[in-house]
């Protein structure tokens, strides 16, 4: 009997753990570079991400080639010259929501969250701490964040001829709509 209740307890744990995982495969990540010479905007609507609400773990995965630009030549240069996406096809982030305790998944509403973790671009890992909004809605979670990254941190060299056109810091926008799995 004791054993059986233990099994039920485990089963229960597994079920709740499952119910607390949220996933999306078509989240949005965009970046924006502004200089007086040129604005460059890349959009990716095929971002995969999982939030495990039981422990606050959050994972993002991006195919670099899925970023699209208004000018095709920009896209080609982005893939060929800067991101070298044949060599480094994926970028990812793996982190944790640090203030998980303040989120009530049973009630609809918005929560400010702080996510800390590793951003990996071009096989270069950088520790990040990002402030974002997590919104509990009926049938899922919405997450939004904005942060700044520096191409130099990921060994992206910008030659002098285009230094006027590419900003030193790039603003990244994240907008995700998760559904439970």
């Amino acid at each position: 009997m004791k054993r059986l209740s233990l099994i039920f307890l485990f089963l229960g744990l597994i079920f709740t753990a499952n119910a607390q995982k949220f996933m999306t495969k078509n989240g949005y990540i965009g970046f924006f570079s502004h200089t007086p010479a040129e604005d460059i905007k890349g959009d990716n609507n095929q971002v995969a991400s999982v939030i495990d609400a039981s422990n606050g773990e959050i994972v993002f995965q991006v195919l670099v080639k899925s970023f699209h630009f208004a000018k095709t030549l920009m896209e080609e240069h982005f893939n060929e010259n800067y991101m070298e996406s044949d060599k480094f096809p994926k970028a990812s982030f793996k982190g944790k929501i640090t203030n998980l305790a303040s989120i009530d998944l049973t009630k609809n509403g918005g929560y400010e969250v702080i996510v800390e973790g590793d951003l990996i671009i071009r096989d270069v890992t950088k520790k990040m701490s990002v402030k974002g909004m997590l919104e509990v809605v009926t049938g899922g979670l919405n997450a939004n964040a904005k942060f700044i990254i520096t191409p130099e941190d990921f060994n992206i060299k910008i030659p002098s001829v285009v230094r006027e056109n590419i900003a030193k810091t790039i603003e990244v926008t994240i907008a995700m709509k998760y559904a439970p799995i």
Partner: protein
Amino acid sequence: MDLLDKESKPEINYTTATFKSTRVMNGHSIEKMPAGQLDFRISHRFGRINSGAYELFGLDQANIHFGLEYGIFNWLMVGIGRGTYEKTYDGFTKFTILRQSTGAKVMPVSVSFFSSVAINSLKWSDPERTNYFSSRLSYVNQVLVARKFNQSFSFQIMPSYVHRNLVETELDPNDLWAIGAGGRIKLSKRISFNAEYYYVATSTTYQGQQVYDPLSIGFDIETGGHVFQLIFTNSVAMIEKGFIGETTGSWGKGDIHFGFNISRVFTLK
């Protein structure tokens, strides 16, 4: 992360940027202008380097070709142009047949088809005879087969057929068969070394002069929205009909022309 890896399906990964430009050197590469993009091109070929100091090694003479080329779909581009050489107007279409890819679908090469018409607008050499407009026309058809072997090396072969409606003498054939080969080696992210050669199987003369196989070598230099191509070649003409069948310069004799192609791309939509 494991969950995401499991969930993500294998995708078709199409090869991009086999060449930096729509031209290898003189001739077309498999690259096309993407949909909605307009390429304004200006090309120059100077005179022969062996013409000596009096002609400043050819720089006193200039042949120009300018063109407007546009991508209708990502797989279809069209272009029109005009060249000094024989006062020729030209128009072409180029479309994709196969795209090199890896991943869910593996395709070892990219294949495009290129077709062009050239209209020579010189005054009639014999105004006395009955002259037809169709006598001004020549046609070129090419199959372009390319493979990007790795980040820095791409290679292309191009079986070609040229038809000229009217030729000057009985010795000049109306039909020419040729096979071209071209490639590029990237020297840095923005500079590549290119070479292109056409073997013209129908050996011929042009207006009484010996015709040689066209050979061109040069560099692609990319700066943001521009691609510059610096080129050394034994042909003056910058369109297929001209350089495949009418190259009268010989590398061996030093009949080499320096030249460049400039491409500026505008996004129209």
